[in-house]
């Protein structure tokens, strides 16, 4: 009888401990520095939490909101764990990476991934009047009318996720401009997956 109670308590203990919502079995959170403040990226700990935001929608009109391919040319597609690793790496002094939220501002202002910079896909189009300024700022050099991307940091690009072409468009524009595909990473899950996992939003 006594041993049964002990086993029950152990099991109960396990159930209570299982309440932790970790990122992986070994990773509870990622702490990063953004400006003067530190941000902890973790999952929402309330196991009853449900999405009530726009990311709970299943059926948006296509076009414009169509399912995106897994691969865009030879650009590497990454998931959340790889992205978190890169976000951690970006904290290092010699990190040469930039996390880009390629959505238009009205989407991005509703919340984005910590450490990301909003650079709408429309501004990376060939005919964008801001293109020259943006590419120069990124470190690209215009040599005889062609852009050289050697000094540009590796760009991880995302948008709303699997149903949104904004990141796809940004990537295609950069490649068209001459950016090597290995300078770009595509986080296809985007804000949809980030939200569904309950990860911290800035």
């Amino acid at each position, binding site marked *: 009888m006594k041993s049964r109670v002990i086993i029950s308590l152990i099991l109960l203990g396990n159930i209570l401990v299982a309440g932790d919502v970790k990122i992986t079995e070994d990773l509870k959170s990622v702490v990063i520095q953004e400006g003067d403040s530190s941000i902890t990226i973790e999952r929402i700990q309330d196991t009853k939490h449900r999405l009530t935001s726009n990311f709970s929608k299943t059926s948006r009109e296509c*076009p414009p909101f169509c399912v995106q391919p897994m691969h865009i040319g030879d650009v590497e597609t990454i998931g959340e764990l790889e992205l978190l690793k890169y976000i951690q790496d970006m904290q290092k002094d010699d*990190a040469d990476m930039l996390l880009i939220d390629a959505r238009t*501002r009205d989407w991005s202002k509703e919340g984005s991934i910590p450490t990301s910079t909003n650079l*709408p*896909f*429309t501004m990376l189009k060939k005919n964008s009047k801001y293109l020259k300024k943006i590419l120069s*700022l990124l470190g690209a050099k215009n040599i005889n009318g062609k852009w050289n991307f050697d000094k540009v940091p590796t760009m991880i690009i995302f948008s709303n996720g699997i149903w949104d072409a904004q990141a796809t468009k940004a990537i295609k524009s950069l490649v068209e401009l001459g950016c090597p595909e290995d300078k770009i990473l595509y986080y296809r899950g985007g804000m949809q997956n980030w939200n569904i996992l309950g990860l911290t939003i800035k």
Partner: protein
Amino acid sequence: MLIKKITILLLVGLSSIYAKSDLMSGLTDIVDKAEEVKTENKKVLDYAFKQRMRTQWMARDALLISMDFNSSFYQKELLANADAFNENFNNLINSKEDIKKAEKIDSNFSKKIEDVKEIWSKFYDSVKNISKNGKDKDSLKFIEDNNIKLLDDIAYIFTNFIQSYQSTDKLEASMAHIKSMLYTQVGKPRMYINKLVKERLLIEQNINKKENQDSLEESIKYMDKLMKALKDGDKDLELNGTEDIKILEKLSNSQKIWEEVKALSLKKKITKDELQTLILKNEEFIKVQTEVVKLTRESNDN
């Protein structure tokens, strides 16, 4: 030697951090500036929604004054609405750059603006006359004969402006279209309620009774469809409906008021008290529906 090395490493590290934050804030600055231009463009939309509503508001108030219904109050209201219409209209047509853009869509655009200017000038004069003398029949006739034309002309001008602002990028234009349809439709009931109350008053005054009875019935039918569409969605009206609790709450309030307005509008004869209620409900509806417009914009229902 070691301290020197550490110092150099620290400086390299710090400069890299600062370079990155410079890059990020530089990009943010460029995007912010681009957004400022977009915000300016969006103001046109705001003008559009209110101007449509005002055309019908003025026509309704002119009628109320002619019916001796709280005349001194509505004389002030009428003039205030006309002044606001005039200010917005001038702001818009004085923007040469915008007109040039819109002319790319319709080469007759400048001429159309001149035509609208002419009608508006006469309309404004008529409003001023009625605000001084509520019994001025010629001015009332001009307003009642021309308010729908003014409404259509203003809608035409704004549609062109909106189209001229459209992005050349297919994806962005398509996303913007969804929003602009939503904002256009969500603002419409305010115009329609004024229009149909005006039509009911015209019937009451025996002015073009048959024609106005038909218009009223059509307005009521459209209003029913529109109110349902804002809540549940409608393919024809390109609306998806909403699940936003705050918006649904307000829509439920405005639906209740709309049902009251509808019932009064459909009555064959209305008493003075009922007329008073009709006008009050008309205004109450506009207030609630204005909150719906505000909440819809805030919710940024993507």
